[in-house]
């Protein structure tokens, strides 16, 4: 079974702090994704990566950056956390296979106060 592990289940940070959300997958998947989940809005793509050191912006990249130095690890960075970044963050991975679904982690619920 594919395992996607997010380092924190709950996180509370202060406005202005730099925040790192870490995600690790154990199935050698090429693609990795960061989504943000908000009530009534579903899941929205922040960034994705299709290879080490390669990244592309998703639909809502403002205020975020990412890092993928190793194939199994994909980090989401909030350079200066703001209260409107309070949300659930979901990491996912997938292989480069046409009809492959995404495999998700358990999510990190981030609160910025």
């Amino acid at each position, binding site marked *: 079974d594919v395992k996607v592990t997010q380092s924190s289940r709950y996180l509370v940070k202060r406005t202005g702090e730099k925040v790192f959300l870490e995600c690790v997958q154990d199935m050698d998947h090429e*693609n990795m*994704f960061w*989504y943000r989940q908000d009530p*009534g*809005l*579903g*899941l*929205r*793509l922040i960034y*994705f990566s*299709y290879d080490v050191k390669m990244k*592309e912006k*998703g639909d809502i990249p403002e205020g975020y950056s990412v890092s993928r130095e190793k194939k199994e690890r994909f980090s989401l960075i909030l350079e200066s956390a703001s209260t409107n970044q309070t949300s*659930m963050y*979901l990491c*996912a991975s*997938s292989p*480069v296979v*046409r*009809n*492959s*679904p*995404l495999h*998700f982690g*358990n*999510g990190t619920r981030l609160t910025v106060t």
Partner: protein
Amino acid sequence: AQTVTQSQPEMSVQEAETVTLSCTYDTSESDYYLFWYKQPPSRQMILVIRQEAYKQQNATENRFSVNFQKAAKSFSLKISDSQLGDAAMYFCAYRSEAGNTGKLIFGQGTTLQVKP
């Protein structure tokens, strides 16, 4: 750009009954994939069912089946013999065939309540 719409924020069903969750999408592409995911209170996103657009036959997985209407751009999920464990948020998602980036576009979600 593609969009996915789930117009039912909440649905409820009696245990053992059948319920249908609606999903519509907008795309100009002819080849794509559609998915339904379930998110229980544990927050773990679980794949329920997938459909390839080039297949005319509707996908089925045990009690879960879809009604895929390509011309109408509709992809509804039918849950038969509903069980208490089916209570969750359900998301419809679209994946483009182009580019093979693997990224999914999600709908807003439907919360399903199952009444005993």
